[in-house]
Structures are given as C-alpha cells and as structure tokens.
C-alpha cells in the first residue's frame, strides 16, 4: 500500500482538479479514478462563494485533500498560501509548487528547498513538486519532505515520461515515496511510470481535458494498477526501458 506521511492509501493515483468543465464532471471523474488523494489549487478556493467552489465537490470522508500552492513564484508566497490553506481548515498537507516562470510552470529548485524546510518545520506534511533532479530529491528528503513529485514533462504538455532517465535515479535513491507528476498524457504514460517503480502518479490535464473525463479517469485507474502489478511481478529487461533492476528498494 502507498504510505505518505503516515497515512495509507490503496489507490496510487492522485488527481488534480484545475481543468475540468464542471464540478459534477469532476466529481464523477474522481469517483471513477478511485483516487483517495485530490489536489486543489488554494488560489482557486473561495469559501465565500460556495456555489462555485471546487472544495464543495470533494468528499472529505473518503478523500485526503492536498491543497497546492500553484501560482507561488517564490518561497515566501508559497509559505503564505500554505498557511492560508491551513487556517481555512484544509488540514496540514500541502503540495508545494514554486514556479517563478509563468510560461512553463517549472519549479524553482532553490526556493522549493527553502519553502520545504520552513513548512516541514512548521508541521506541514510537504509533498514537493520538483524538476526531475535526483540531487534535489535527496536534499528535499534531508529537509523533511514527505514525498517528492518529479515532473515527467512540463505541466499540461502531455509529452509523457520525458525525464525518465532522471526519474529512474530518483526512484533508485529515494527513501521517500516518489510521485510522478505533470505531463503524463495517456494511461500508458502513467503505467510506464508505475512499472519503473514510482510509488504513485498525479494526473490532471489528461483526465480533465479528455473528451470523456470519467472514462479517462477509469482508464488511468486501470493503467496505474497494471503498472504497479507489473512492477511487483518483475518486468523483463529491455534496452529501451530505463527500469531499475530487481527492486533494491525492497531490500534496503
């Protein structure tokens, strides 16, 4: 079972909420995905306008909400937003996103580490969106992160596992759960990430902007299960694949 910050989850698929056509479609898609962790941009949350609010569409009894700091361009903004979320009563989990470049929404390693240190110290369970940078993954681990979330390719690009070489190393070296985030365009992309030994994946655009988000959510659910099951069974080696070999992870 997936374990993050002391909580256990049977689903290894985390879904995003930012790009759906409506709350009802989103709700149905989340159900179909089987996901137990759902991320929500704090900058979209408006408790003053409940009829339109994403939060209202999420079943808190079943789902761990993972507020994210998307939009933050530096550590201090991210820390501020995270605290606003906690003060709203959204709990102490936070998906840290620090993206100074509004163009590709790629994360800033320096301010990401800085914010992780501070938020972890302040009692947050910090799940960290990051570039596929193995050294940064280790430093985030040292800084008290609860999970690292390396990107597969830029957000929304749907280009799949373009950083697999680095993600392989992150998975090999990490003592934390590794959640592959951003850029997974198709169920097979997610399946591939799971076969490589990722602990979970996060999918947003590919589900939300599909012609049939509910069906696509189901497809990702199946692909993630297939990928994980294959990983556990032991995938036959292939030159083309950057799989780590027999999971050393299980040993140490």
């Amino acid at each position: 079972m997936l374990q993050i910050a002391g909580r256990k989850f049977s689903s290894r698929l985390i879904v995003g909420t930012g790009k759906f056509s409506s709350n009802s479609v989103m709700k149905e898609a989340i159900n179909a995905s089987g996901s137990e962790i759902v991320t929500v941009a704090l900058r979209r949350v408006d408790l003053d306008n409940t009829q339109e609010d994403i939060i209202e569409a999420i079943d808190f009894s079943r789902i761990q909400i993972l507020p994210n700091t998307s939009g933050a361009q530096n550590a201090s903004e991210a820390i501020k937003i995270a605290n606003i979320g906690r003060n709203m009563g959204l709990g102490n989990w936070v998906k840290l996103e620090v993206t100074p470049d509004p163009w590709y929404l790629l994360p800033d390693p320096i301010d990401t580490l800085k914010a992780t240190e501070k938020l972890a110290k302040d009692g947050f369970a910090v799940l960290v969106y990051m570039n596929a940078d193995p050294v940064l993954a280790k430093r985030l681990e040292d800084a008290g992160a609860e999970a690292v979330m390396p990107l597969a390719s830029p957000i929304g690009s749907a280009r799949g596992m373009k950083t697999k070489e680095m993600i392989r190393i992150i998975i090999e070296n990490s003592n934390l759960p590794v959640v592959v985030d951003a850029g997974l365009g198709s169920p097979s992309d997610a399946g591939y990430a799971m076969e490589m030994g990722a602990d979970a994946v996060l999918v947003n655009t590919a589900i939300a902007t599909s012609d049939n988000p509910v069906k696509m959510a189901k497809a990702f659910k199946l692909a993630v299960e297939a990928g994980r099951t294959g990983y556990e069974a032991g995938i036959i080696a292939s030159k083309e694949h950057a799989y780590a070999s027999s999971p050393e992870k299980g040993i140490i």
Partner: protein
Amino acid sequence: MRYKNFLSLLEQYRWEKVSAKIANVKPDTLDKLLKKENFSVGDLPILLSQTASARLPELEKKASRITTQYFGKARFLYAPLYITNRCINRCVYCGFNKNNKIERKRLSSKEISKDADYLYNQGFRHILIVSGEDPIVMKSDYLIDTIALLHKKFPSISIEVQPLTENLYRKAVAAGCDGLSLYQETYNKKVYKIVHIGGPKRDFRWRIEGPERAAKAGIKKINFGVLLGLADFRTDIFFAALHAAFIRKRFWKTQIGFSFPRIRPFVGSYQPTVEVKDRDLLQIILALRLVFPQAFLVLSTRERAGFRDKLLQIAATNTSAGSKTNPGGYSDDSTTGQFDISDNRTPAEVVRAIRAAGLYPVWKDWDIGLAG
C-alpha cells in the same frame, strides 16, 4: 543579440518592411510552417498574413487544442472598475478626450467601495482598475490607496491607467496590484502622433517603456495590445507580440497576455481608418495563441455576446462581464462611458453561457498570499 531595451530592438525594424513581409507570404511557406509543433514570434508574420486568413479552420483547430492543453476548461472572469474619467489627453479615438463635453467624475473611496461591493456580490474576485489620465494618479496616493482598499476584498487587482514611474509601479505592487494593462495603441510612430493630439500620451517612448518599468518593479502580469483600427492591424499585432516576447525574455518571471480592443462608437467623431472584421480578430487571436500557448488572451465587453462566446471556446481565456465603463457606473448610471458596450449580459448570464459551452467559469484564480 542583446538590446538594452525594447525601443532599441524596435528601431531595428521598418514598419513598411514588416508590412511587406506579411503581405507577401507564399502559400507553401505557410504549409511548411503549419507542420511545426512550436511557433515563435518569428513565425507571426506568416500566421498573421492574408495568406493565412484563408486557412483559419486549420489555425483554429491547432489553437483550440493548445488552449485546452494549457488552460483546460477554465475561463477567468474579471470586471473593470472605472475610478475617474478625468483626462488631460486629447486622443481622437477616446470618449474621455479632454475636449469631449462629458460629465467628469473622480470616485471617492466611499464611492469605490460601493461599486466594489456590488462587484464582489456578483462574484468577481479580480478587479481591473481603469482611469483616464487624471494627474491625481501621479501626484498623490489616490491610485495606491484605491488598490489597497480593493485588495482587502479582492485577491487580484490589475490596473489600466497611464504609464507610471517605476517607483509608482513598485508602490502599486506593494499595495496588492499584480497586473498591468498598458496598450501602446499603435506601434506606428507616425499614426501615433496623428491620433494623440495633445497631452502626455503624445510621448511614444514614455508609454512604450512602461512595461519594462512595470516588470522591473515586480508587476506579475502584463497585458499588451493595440487599438485595432488605427493602423494596419497585422503589422501592429506583430509589434505588440514582439514587445511581449521581449519582456518575457528579459523578465522571465513576468506573465504576459494580450487584449484586443477594437475601436467602438463613443462620444466624438473619430472613425477607424482600418477595418478589423470579426474574422480578422479571430485570426489575430489564433495566431497569438499558437505563438504564446500560455498567454492570457483577454476579451472585453466591446465585442458581441455570440462572438465572445465563440472566442472563449477556441482560444480566449479571460473575459469581463456586465461591465460599466463610467466611474461609479455599477451603482449609478448617470455618467457617460468610455465606449459603448456590445455585450450587455449580466455576469450571471455570461457565466451561464460559459457553462453551456462546456467551460468552467473561474471567479477566483489568485490568492491574497501571492501579492504585496
């Protein structure tokens, strides 16, 4: 090559040569280009050409895919809030022209709060503060205080006022301003001088350097645009895009966007010298979306309801709704607006239309923690 500012880059270009380049695009040049996956400003003369205008369905398909990819189904709502129509400029195309005999008004903080409350209750969380070139903006903290006042309720505050000093932009940021709309109106210097007859706005340079000052001061989002109808729009849009690309390359943390004001009837007599048809505006929006996949493309209520709905579905990402273009207009409709509104629907009606199109209307896309 590094240019020390946009003006020195602009000086490398001759308007006529760019126009000629756009006019002489061959169909097979366009064919080759459309096979590419990523586009850059260098491709814009081709995408904006009359040759390309025969291929709008193709452009539309690509643009629509890109928009969905980066923005999903979300579309963002904002409302303009006019705080003063006093103006010391004489711009031939504008209802606030100093020579126009209209009732002038500058809102008090109490009056601003009244309009603001109205907009908040409608659901708006993003306000665009608009004003004529009222000297009070440069001479006192009127603007800064207004930003601070509104920021108490509204997470996102943008401004569309005369170009400010870097220092004033800095103060605006500190007060909670995250966005700037500053349109050059036209990048054709000759036309610029002709239409800006008097007032500080005649200073082409002070205006064109505004975005650089704003970016330096830490304004996070800058909206570019030209007033469509003043000069050859294809050429003008190319330069606006070049301007935006320059800012993006120099100030990598600055988000850019575009607005597309077409000259609308107003109190006065100016008639557009260049006609910009709906299909032209559509082409502009499609071309900019291809070159700037992640840019905000912003619609105002200058455009008709049906056309706006269509543009939102394809490529536009932000829209105002239920706008009033006169100071205090939300609480009191006695003064005259800057221009006529074409889309008179209420915000609720606009939101319904957005939903009906399978899109998600987003009122709040900014957090108080992201500013100030």
